[in-house]
């Protein structure tokens, strides 16, 4: 299974679904950006992600 790292760079405190960030594929570093929570979920769905690990900072790591 591929590994991905989710990084959120901007998030609206009033509307947490309003966020901007990247999904980084571990290994080759392929980057996909997202501009909302829904878009992030759709991308994760497409990547057939089965587990999400949240690391200590605002960065999220996906296995």
């Amino acid at each position: 299974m591929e590994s991905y790292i989710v990084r959120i760079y901007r998030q609206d405190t009033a509307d947490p679904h309003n966020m901007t960030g990247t999904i980084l594929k571990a290994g080759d570093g392929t980057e996909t950006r997202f501009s909302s929570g829904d878009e992030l979920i759709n991308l994760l769905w497409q990547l057939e992600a089965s587990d999400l690990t949240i690391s200590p900072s605002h960065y999220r790591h996906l296995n």
Partner: protein
Amino acid sequence: MNSHQNKIQSLLTAMESRDLVEVLRQNSLPFLAPLFDDQDDSPGIRVYTLGRFSLVKNEQAVDFPGRAKRKPMDLLKALIALGGRDVCQVKVAEILWPDADGDAAHRSLDTTLHRLRKLLDNDRAIMLREGKISLSNDCCWVDAWAFERVQGRLEFILDQLFNENIDNQEVVKLANIALSMYKGPFLGVSSSESWAITYRERLRSKYIRLLRKVGRYYEANGKLDLALEAYLKGLEIDGLLEELYQRAMACYCGLELRAEALLCYQRCVMNLRAHLGIPPSPRTEQLHQQLLNS
């Protein structure tokens, strides 16, 4: 008072006087690992994992080009990535031999563990007890763990000094050590082992968080050149951290380096557009406007 009570009493006293490390060292307590990157005072086995992977035994680099040594090295890397203490044997076997069945993976782990101990030339370096594997702090020094210890200590002090303009020599010393220790991502940029990602990301975010705090500390003490250095180091790690651009622009401005501040803004605009498809935040634009008006 017996000797055990004496030790505890001296530990308590040391906690107050900040000589704790020295007392632990004198008492040879097993959980002690050297706080600083001190060659003269460290165990014979040194493992470098930040920005690379390198094993040094009694000051000699250990080569591991062949297949026979590669798996023991993978085991060592995995142990470090999983915390190094009481790591579940089954979990390690699953990580390193994902396609093998339980018994075969277990046998492979036993063989590899034996090879690693032989390679390290120290039976005490890696302990297996009740299905848990631990890397001994007494025998092994690991740069990532040393970085975390210094980072933890430094953040603790910085949090105590928050918003206080105190020129603390210990902060400067620890900041120099911590910032020089983090030489790159855990196991280097070319490493793609999925089991290493969580630890790599944790170290990376700790480093960036530390750079922010160190930068803020230096700014509060009027040392804008040092603050700027910290922010720029952070941007080298991640060029999309807008807050670091803002702080760097403010430092350039304070140092009367207006052209550099404008270049910093341009870099911020370009990176945000290229990678995230967004314009700078109102706060960044406000700083930019102040620069243009100055």
